[in-house]
């Protein structure tokens, strides 16, 4: 199986700060991947590394089996929508479609025109005058119409109102249903991810916390509630992600592949938001626990 995105120890440093570190991922094709994490976690950095807008400081990344932006032909197989959906403000919507056709041999004119008509965009309108939602849709059209195998979207709906957001995701899902593109989409709204994605990557503080198909993740994480006990007595196969104890009660969030046989626990399924929050919380706690390195001269 050829991974659509493969990263090995990938890292990117700006000056002294590592925006992304030790990122290892293997994303299978045909998925809609949600990349979740707080602002500044490194999501945008990872996505820009994947399209060749940034060069790695450490490690490697391969997209569709090759270096990102390895050739014009490779660039044609990956569609990208950057954060804030940049468009050429002084050019019209129709101009943008023309530019897309000129710069991409794989351009599908009919698809582009159909989408613009469906969206009700005025072809003569200058892109600078479009609303945020319309700009996002235009940017998505430009990415889709070149018929890529892989779509990478950097927080495309972050600054959109709920209706525009819904419409964007509808258009995106329709494309996935029709053309079977693989998608990686970053967001900090878990609700959107839950609707639309079937694979999750949680990125916090420049590191990957957890990655995998959402169904598998939800099937292997549980909330255990029961009488207070020593956490060391738990079987090794159960990894504790989050725990909280009162004098009488223990509440744990565990990850396990096997069944939970201990009758003392009340076992509950989690929803995606609980799972993401647990990993984000663990990462934050890990940051605080790690000693800060103070430079001594």
């Amino acid at each position, binding site marked *: 199986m050829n991974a659509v995105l493969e990263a090995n120890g990938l890292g990117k440093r700006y000056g002294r700060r590592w925006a992304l570190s030790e990122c290892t991922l293997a994303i299978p094709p045909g998925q809609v991947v949600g990349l979740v994490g707080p602002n500044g976690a490194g999501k945008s950095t990872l996505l*820009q590394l994947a399209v*060749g*807008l940034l060069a790695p400081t450490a490690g490697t990344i391969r997209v569709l089996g090759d270096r990102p932006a390895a050739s014009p032909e490779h*660039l044609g197989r*990956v*569609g990208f929508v950057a954060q804030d959906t*940049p468009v050429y403000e*002084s050019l019209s919507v129709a101009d943008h479609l023309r530019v897309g056709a000129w*710069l*991409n041999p794989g351009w599908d004119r009919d698809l582009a025109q159909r989408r613009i008509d469906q969206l009700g965009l005025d072809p003569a309108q200058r892109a600078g005058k479009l609303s945020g939602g319309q700009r996002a849709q235009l940017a998505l059209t430009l990415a889709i119409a070149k018929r890529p195998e892989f779509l990478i979207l950097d927080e495309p709906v972050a600054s959109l109102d709920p209706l525009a957001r819904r419409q964007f995701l509808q258009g995106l899902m329709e494309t996935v249903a029709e053309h079977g593109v693989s998608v990686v989409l970053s967001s900090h709204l878990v609700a959107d991810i839950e609707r639309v994605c079937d694979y999750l990557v949680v990125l916090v503080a420049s590191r990957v916390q957890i990655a995998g198909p959402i169904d598998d993740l939800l099937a292997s994480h549980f909330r255990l509630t029961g009488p207070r006990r020593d956490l060391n007595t738990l079987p090794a196969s159960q990894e504790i992600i989050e725990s909280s104890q009162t004098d009488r009660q223990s509440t744990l969030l565990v990850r396990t592949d096997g069944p939970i046989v201990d009758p003392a626990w009340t076992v509950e399924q989690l929803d995606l938001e609980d799972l993401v929050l647990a990993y984000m919380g663990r990462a934050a706690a890990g940051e605080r626990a790690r000693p800060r390195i103070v430079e001594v001269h």
Partner: protein
Amino acid sequence: MIRLTWLQFRVQALIAVVAMAITALVLAVTGARLAHLYSTSVATCTVQGDCDTATNAFRLHDQFLQNMLGPLLLVVPGLIGIFWGAPLIAREVQAGTFRLAWTQSVSRRRWLAVKLGSLGLASAIVAGLLSLIVTWWFSPLDRVNANRFSPGVFDERGIVIIGYAVFAFVLGVTAGVLLRRTLPAMAMSLALFVGVRLAVTYLIRPHLVSPAHTSVPVTSATGLGFGSSGSSGVVTFIAKTPRIPNAWVISSQIVEKSGHLASTAVLHQFLMTACPDIANQQAGANQGTFGACVAKVSANYHLVLAYQPANRYWTFQWYETAIFVFLAFALAGLCFWWVSNRLT
């Protein structure tokens, strides 16, 4: 890619075309008139015998245009650098549209190559056409003034302007690539352009070809006189640099018959013996004593000129154009490397 470049450049191209058209129209009309005036008044003046008045009268025509066109040609390359060069990449980086441009099916190198190449060519054409028409307009005046090789005029005629424009354009693009913000790039490119132009004009141009030397009598000087010069305050002989038609006189020095340079002290000594009235600044000095003294100086001293002869004019034009074009290509190389490897 070329069509995209055109789409993004339309407005600037339109402004340039309109400005060029207006300029061309004005110059065509006035230039034809000037040429006609020349052929009827100055060219025929030897027949009539009164050349000086005709020439002077001719020089006064279209003073306004004469004063405007020179500076115009000086300024146009700078404008190209600021308005065509600096925003080219800086604007895309500032607006984030490079994230759109560099994820299309075009390599970054091709993107930059087409933009630099096509707009660089456009700069050369604009500069070339402008220079052509201005040089044509000035040709009767240049024939009369015979000063086309001197700094100031040399920069405003011929093909050097093409070199300046191409260089200014690529310099602007480079500033945009390095600074990534349009306004600072505009400022930096203008400042550097002026700096490089001054450096080439005063430090490099005089040495492109070793100057020739010639001796001329002291009376060829454009201004003769006696006065105190320098810190010593003693009266000495002053001769302003003579003019050689269409040549570039770089320096002129007063030299003794033996060939040695005549210093201020030596000249003062000579004056003390030859023209004591003038040397001591007596009130009785008049036209007669002045003329007699000059004759005495002229008998013992002459001027040695370092100059570039008129027949080297085009050599210098080509050399200087080549220097700027070479610099432009070097900067273009820097841009390519930076955009491919360092920009993000």
